[in-house]
Every structure is written in C-alpha cells, then in structure tokens.
C-alpha cells in the first residue's frame, strides 16, 4: 500500500500503524514521487491512501493520474472536514473511500479490508462495505 501525505509524521504514523495490522506499506511525502513510482511499476501497489491537500498535487489529481497507469489501484482519500468536500463528490472524482481527519488507523483498516495474513481484523465498516 502506498501512503501519501506531505506531513512526514502523519505518513509515518499511518505507515507503521497499518504495518502492525499486517499491511505491507510504504510512505512518501511528495505525490509527484508517488506518481513516478506507480508509473515505473504499476503492479507494485494495489492500494493508494492519499491526503487531499498537498502542495505539489492534490490527492484527487494523484488518484486520477495514478489510475491511468494502474487502473486496478484502490484509492482512499483522506481529508479534513474544512476541505468542504462531500464523500459523494470525492467518490465521483475517483476515490473508492473517503476518511476524515483525524485519521484512526482502525478506520483505515476497515476501509481497506483485511490485510493478507493479518490477525484481529475487525469487520468492514458498514459505511464502506
């Protein structure tokens, strides 16, 4: 799973937290680097967890461009309530799920579904199942 957030601390917390739940994660701070990585090897990732508002590219733009290279990619958008974007709007622009900050690791895990080999996974969040 590729995690993209321009705030390194948030990216690291998400990456380590989800790794503990059994997901194979890697975090980057720059969406442009994330896009280059996806274009370099479209099958390296099957999930993308991205922040919405980032300086070099928005999360929705990243999802759109990433899908051109890797159509199979599941994408979750993380956004603050202040962004004023509804879930329906985000979904219509390519996000498979939307999570609102502050992000809880377990909510992300629920949105992603069980990790391969993961234990103690709770059921899917009904909202996204």
């Amino acid at each position, binding site marked *: 799973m590729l995690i993209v957030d321009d705030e390194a601390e948030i990216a*690291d917390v998400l990456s*380590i937290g989800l790794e503990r739940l059994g997901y194979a994660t*890697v975090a*980057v701070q720059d969406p442009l680097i994330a896009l280059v*990585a996806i274009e370099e*090897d479209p099958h*390296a990732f099957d999930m993308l967890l991205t922040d919405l508002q980032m300086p070099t590219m928005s999360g929705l733009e990243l999802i759109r461009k990433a899908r051109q290279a890797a159509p199979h990619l599941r994408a979750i958008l993380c956004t603050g309530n202040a962004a004023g974007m509804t879930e329906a709007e985000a979904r219509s622009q390519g996000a498979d799920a939307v999570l609102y900050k502050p992000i809880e690791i377990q909510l992300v895990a629920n949105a992603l579904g069980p990790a391969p080999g993961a234990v103690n996974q709770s059921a899917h969040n009904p909202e996204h199942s």
Partner: protein
Amino acid sequence: MRVLIADDHPLYREAAALQIRRLYLEAQVQEVASLSELHAAADQAPDFDLILVDYHMPGMSAAALAGLVQEFPSTPLAVISGVAGNADVLAAARAGVRGYIPKTSTSEYFARALQLLLAGGTSIPTEVLMEQPPSHKTPAWLAKMSVREKEVLRGVALGQSNKEIGRTLGLAEVTIKLHLRNVFRKMSVKSRSEAAVKAVKAGLS
C-alpha cells in the same frame, strides 16, 4: 634483571622474550603459558623486576589481575593483549596494573613501555581510555523506523542492491527505493554507504 612473560601464545611469548633480551642484554626472561604456571614460577623465585601478563590467557580475568597486583606489590606488572578496547584497558587499569601494551604495538613502543615500567612509571594507552565505549542505547532514528524499513536497511548494510533486497523481501524494486527515501530521511544520511556504516554501528546487520 628478571622478567616473567605469561602468555598462552608461544609465538608472541618468544618474540617478546627475544626483544627483551635484545634490549637488555643481562635480562633473564622466563616464559609461562598460564596463570597456574605463573604462580608456580613465582613460588620458586618471586623476585621479578617486571611481569608481562596476557589478558586473555586461560584463567585470566580482571579479578585475577587484581590478585596478581596484590601478590607482587613491588613489581611492575603490565598487561599484554591482542585486544586493546576501552573496556579491557579500563578494567586492567582499575585492577592496578602499571602498563597495558597492545600486541599490535611497534617494537619502538614496546621498548619505550618497558623503559617506563622499569623506571617506576606507567604505560597505559590513554588514547584508548579516552574512546567512548560502544553505546547499547537504541539510536533515535532506529526507534522511528518501521519493521520493513529496518529490513531494507539491513539489506543495505549487507551490501545488497535494491533489486536483491526486493527479491529477498518479496517487494518491487520501486518499493525498496521509496523505503530507502524514508530510511535516509530518518537516519539523516545522504548516501547508501553512510546508511550502511550507521546501521552496522547500531548493530543492525
């Protein structure tokens, strides 16, 4: 002048004895190979002018060394050792020895050390004492790393390429590249070699 050399390695013992005889023509050098042989030699004739003891021969320890210092209070006693680490030198100095001569030292250093010890002085490698002992504390950067990042760093420390690390971990090469960006950032390093050195120093290899 009577010198006792206690070392379980005959080659070093003989080389040291030879050098002492060259430096001091009148020297009578007695060689023993263990702590028990040292005691036996001292029982027969205890009046040595200098005793050189290998720190790592059978039966030797910091406590045994302190015992020897008490047993021969008026004889300069020096440790000869292949290992001249901070902890060993410190332990020997605390045991009360007057000298610590690394086996890797030059013949000039050895001659100067003997000269000092026989003149009533001391010869401890202070540069070794000033070294910081290895820290067993986990570095802050290591505590910030994910399990996967540590695995990638371990591969770097082993000299593996990104492709090799990826193959070992079952990850795409591009993923290894991204992990390395985080590893470098967390370690505050700019190169693979710098990361490898830091990782090895932290015991991650």
